[in-house]
Structures are given as C-alpha cells and as structure tokens.
C-alpha cells in the first residue's frame, strides 16, 4: 500500500512515524531520508535499527521518536533482526497467532555505513542470502559519525577522518569506497538501488519499490553529514545536489539483475566542485595533491560508462 505522494507538502501532513523530537544534528540528512522512508507507505512497519547516529538520537530513555515498532539490538545485527522478525511474522500468520492489527506489515532494517559496510557486513550478507522478506536501508555518510568521525570502508579516498587525518605525511584515507551496491546485487537480491535525499521523488519511488518487492531488498542512501563532511548545516541539499550531479553518487537501481539509471544530470559537474564544498577534502586542493582529484574524476567517468553499459546490456 504505497502512497501516491505528489509533492513535499503531502509529507508535512502525513502521520509521522519518526517524530521531530530527536537529537540528530541540524542539517543531518538521516532524518530527511528516514522521515520520508517511514512516511512513504501505509504499511505497518517494524524497524530494526543498528547502533549508530540514527539509533542513539531517536531512542533515549524515557523518550522515543518512533511511533511504530522499533528494536535496536547491536551494531552489527540489524539485518539479522529484520530477517528474524519477517520469519516470525510468517510463522505466527501460519499458526493463526498474528495480531489482526499486524496484517500488511513490512520489516525494515536501518544502519549506517559502519553497520552495513563493516561490522554488520557478514550479518547483512547472511540475511540477504537466506532470502528473508525485508528491506535494508543504509544511511551512507561514509564515516563512523556516531563515534566521532573515524573512517569506514565506505570512506572515499582522500577524506580526512579522525583515524585517517590528513597531515604532512598523509593524504587522508588511502582506500577507495567499497562497492556495496555491486556486492548486494551479486547476492542475487531482487532489488538494489542507490538514492539521495535531494532527488526525493526518485528516493520515494525506490523506497516504495523496495518495500513492495518480496525478498531481501537493499537501498544505499547517500546521507551528507554536516559534522564530519564539514559543511554548513543549511547546505545539506546543496552538497547532495553536487554529489548526484557530479556522479559521485549516481542514482540507479538493479531489479532482478536489470540496471536502470534513474538520473542523468543535464550538466555533469566536475568532481572537484563536489569536493571543494566539504572540509574533509580541503587538503586535496593543496599543491601536490592534484593527482588525487584527477584520479577520482577518472574513476567517476569510468564508473559512469560502466553503468551505462550495464544498463544497455541488461535491458537488451
């Protein structure tokens, strides 16, 4: 029962399942993404939330920002939890023990890139491989923001983080971002997609699709972090626009192996413009570091060509 949402105003009148009374930073993209995620459907939602910013900022006893069923167990096991809840739903329904009010329930797991790309990687892989009926949304801010900005395997090359600080002997993080979307697609998940909050209609469409499709679905949500990416809190959507328009975060989906590019920027912005607005990349603009940006641009161009080829190939 996905809703038809034509404009943003409709969200403001929606029945809130993530209340405004949370502790996320002003300008944090998490709350924008998750609010639209939980309000884009009329399904009952059970949410399994991994440890991270989203979790610690929304359920501090004796308060909760969640007006739906919500559970947080650990940092690594949100996917497992969601899978187990989906199995419980199945068993209780079969045995005639399901509450009447629980019909049409969807199970959602939410985790940051720490929980998804790193500590919970095995758990996510297991849960997706087993084929439980749940949707996993990764709030990808490319850093362990909750513990104070340490690098993750989603952190892009050159980012200065608290465990990969840029300095006279270091360009910051030395590794390139892990391709989680490719990894999830390789699991045979029926639906895998990437979204960004600035393209909200696309984001809603993908969330709704992910929830509707049977089986394990995965959405990687680009979530700009004002604190760790170091940009002013009113520029979250500007940064997100640069991320999608530079193709640092291309918006695409893979449905049963078929690739669709959902957004083709009219004017592709150079990657340096996306980097220049963020404090974490400031040092890359110092003389001697030009090659980092040049190599990055080449990687983005190559990935864009690859994506288009994959789209062409899988649609033919």
């Amino acid at each position, binding site marked *: 029962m996905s809703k038809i949402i034509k404009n943003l105003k409709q969200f403001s009148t929606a029945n809130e399942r993530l209340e405004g009374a949370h502790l996320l930073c002003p300008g944090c993209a998490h709350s924008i993404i998750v609010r639209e995620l939980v309000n884009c459907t009329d399904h009952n939602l059970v949410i399994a939330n991994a440890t991270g910013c989203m979790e610690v900022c929304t359920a501090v006893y004796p308060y909760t920002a*969640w007006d739906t069923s919500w559970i947080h167990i650990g940092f690594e096991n949100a996917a497992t939890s969601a899978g187990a809840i989906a*199995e*419980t739903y*199945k068993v209780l329904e079969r045995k005639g023990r399901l509450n009447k*009010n629980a019909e049409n329930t969807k199970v959602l797991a939410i985790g940051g890139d720490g929980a998804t790309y790193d500590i919970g990687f095995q758990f996510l892989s297991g849960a997706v491989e*087993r084929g439980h009926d749940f949707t996993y949304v990764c709030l990808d801010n490319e850093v362990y923001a909750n513990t104070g900005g340490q690098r993750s395997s989603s952190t892009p090359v050159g980012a200065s983080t608290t465990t990969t600080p840029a300095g006279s002997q270091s360009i910051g993080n030395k590794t390139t971002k892990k391709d989680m979307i490719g990894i999830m697609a390789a699991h045979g998940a029926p639906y895998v997609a990437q979204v960004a909050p600035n393209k909200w209609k696309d984001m809603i469409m993908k969330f709704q699709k992910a929830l509707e499709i049977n089986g394990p679905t995965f959405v990687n949500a680009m979530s700009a972090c004002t604190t760790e990416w170091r940009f002013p809190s009113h520029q979250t959507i500007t940064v997100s626009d640069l991320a999608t328009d530079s193709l640092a975060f291309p918006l695409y989906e893979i449905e049963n192996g078929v690739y669709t590019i959902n957004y083709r920027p009219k004017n592709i912005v150079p990657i340096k413009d996306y980097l220049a607005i963020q404090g974490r990349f400031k040092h890359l603009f110092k003389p001697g570091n030009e090659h980092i940006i040049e190599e990055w641009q080449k990687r983005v161009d190559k990935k864009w060509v690859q994506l288009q080829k994959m789209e062409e190939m899988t649609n033919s």
Partner: protein
Amino acid sequence: MSKEYVLKEVEFWDGAMASSQALRQAEVDIMAAYPITPSTPIIQNYADYLSNGYVDGEYIRTESEHAAMSACVAASAAGARVTTATSSQGFALMIEVLYQASGMRLPVVLNVANRALAAPLNVNGDHSDLYLGRDAGWINLCTFNQQEVYDMTLMSFKIGEHKNVRLPVMVHQDGFICSHTAQNVAPLQDDVARKFVGDFEAVDSLLDFARPVTYGAQTEEDWHFEHKAKQHKAIMDSINVIEDTFEEFEKLTGRKYNAVESYMMEDAEIAIVALGTTIESSIEAARQLREEGIKVGIVAPRVFRPFPYDKIADALKNVKAIGILDRSSPGGALGMLFNEVTAAIYTNDTKPVINNYIYGLGGRDTTIADLKQIAKEIQANADAGKLTTPVQQFSGLRGPKLSFFDMESSK
C-alpha cells in the same frame, strides 16, 4: 499443525536428543542456530522434525552464533517462542547478545552442551563456557544426566516465559559425556508436555501495532542503574517461579528437583561440590567410600543463576570439610564455584576446611578412582581440622603435582 510423535514410556536418548525432543514438544516457533560441536545434534534433530512435519516452526540457519542469538532476540521481541543451542566458541561469540536478551527481558531458551574454550582448540567437555556466561543475566539450570536435560529444557520455557520472570534461560549439559552418550529417559507424551509448557503469550510484541514499542533504547547515568537493578531483582525473584515449576513438574512426573541438590548429605562428614556429569560419578564414588567408612555427601547447584546462596549454606552447614571442584581453567584465581560456595557458607556457624580442585579440563576423564582420592584428601582435612594441602590442586593432570595458594608456607 504438527504430527504427533509417539514416544515409548522409556526412551534411550543421548543428551542432545533429550534436548531436541523437549524443544519439539515445546512447539518452538523459531529456532535460529549455527552448528558447533558438541551441540550440533540438538539442532540437527530439530531440523529433522521440521522436515518431517513433527513441529511447525521456522529454522533460521544463520551464518554465525552471534547472528543466531541476534535472531532469537528479535524473534522473541516479535512474539515468537524461540530457541537455539551452542557450545564453547559459539557461546563466546554469542556473549554480546546474551546481555541484550536478558536486558530486554526476552525469554529465549539456550541449550548449552558445555565445552572447553580455545586455545588450544578442544571440542570436549568442561565448564569454561558456562562460567563465561555467568554474569549475563540469564537463569542457568544445570543438568547431570540425560533425563534432567529433557526435564530442565521443558521447564525452561515455563520458567522464562512466566509473567513474573520474563528472562532468558540456559540449560547446561556436559558436552559429549552427556550430549553424546545415551541413558534411559522417561519422556512425557506430546499432549501432556504441551499442556505442561503451555501456550506462548507474547508480551510487548513488535507485531502489535495497537501499542507500538521501542526495544533497546539508550540509558545513561540517569536511568541505566535503575534498569539493571530491576533486572537483578527479576532474576533474584525468579527462584520462586523456578521452585514452583519444579513442584508442578514433580506432581506430573514424580521427579523431584531442588535449587540445590544434595546426595547422601544426611549423615555426611565431608562433602564434594561440583557440577555436571561429575555428580553421577561422585555419587558412585561416595557409595564405594561409605563401605570404607568415609561419610561423604555431594552437593550441587541445580540452579546456578540465580545463585542459591542460602540453600548452599544450609546444605553444607554440618560438614567438617568440603572439596569444591571446578571444571574450568581458573586463569589466575581460585575456581569460580569455589569462590561462590565459600562465600555462601561464610556466614554459617560451622567453619569447615575448604579446598579447591581444578579437574577434567578439555574433557579429561575424571574417574571414580580420581573422585575417591579427592574424597580421601577432604577426609584428611576433616580429620586434621585444617588444610593438609595447598588450597588449590589440579586433579588428573599429567606430570608432577600442581598446586597453588599454599597457606601453610605463606605463614
């Protein structure tokens, strides 16, 4: 609806089968498990029941024990009767989530086939895993043979799910010695067992949208202490439900269980305190020693958590000397059972001579002869009215005698 499994009045079951049959009769909704020796047959037997329609549920074949316990916690919060089984390293991997289960007051049942912890890698029985989980806030029930495994597993659901308890429960059995050897077990028929365990009643379910719940919130210095205090009170109070359940079970089966089991203690001068299958060997050793005039009795906590402090003290109030046996590497201290039992009897008027034996690590066989030797040393302490050996000795170890905490030489 699952098919009935007709059982003989007396079955010949190993401990793993005794667990599995009890889990089947409890009509578990979700089993989430990862195989590890020696607990593996428990989940394999259960898979067999599922595949043949003897139980209606789902088996989540997780990719690790951590995920298995995670799935149990989430499924329990969603309103399912859940269970898993593990041993040793798998138990160690579960530890983080064991605390989550008890902290969220979810009645998960965990069968543990006790096994040593690596390194060095060892698949055989000792109590290292049992000791590792002692502070996790779970009710811990101990068994000494296969019949008790069956009985305690059935009772564990009734105890943990009781509205005044709402806590996870572990049922321990010795790896291999109990899990893989068979004895006669008198089971209940399915209808009787089901009636005894009762239907699962979901509390604060994630699948009740009339009343959405938040599980696993954060509490800091303002509320954490109150939560943990309430949790401790719940497990302390659970002894009443445990004893009521034992009583109800006795009425049904004639098999009587106690928070602390005592064997031949009525006229005992000395006592052995231990856990697991060593109890049955100790009873046999005691029978033989009594023919030689050594009046030895045996005391064993059936309920290891909540620790039956007062009942231990009562059971040991009349003896002159006690040997407390720990089947776990003590890692730089006296054995844990030694410390806990000693603390329990400290306030008794009698001051028995107490010593500690570390024995049977990694499945090292502990024979009747070993236990008779231990009893004779305890008797020597009783006769001397003081320690005749260092406090801690290793029993059944190769090479020269190893002992620690020599109180005489440190004077």
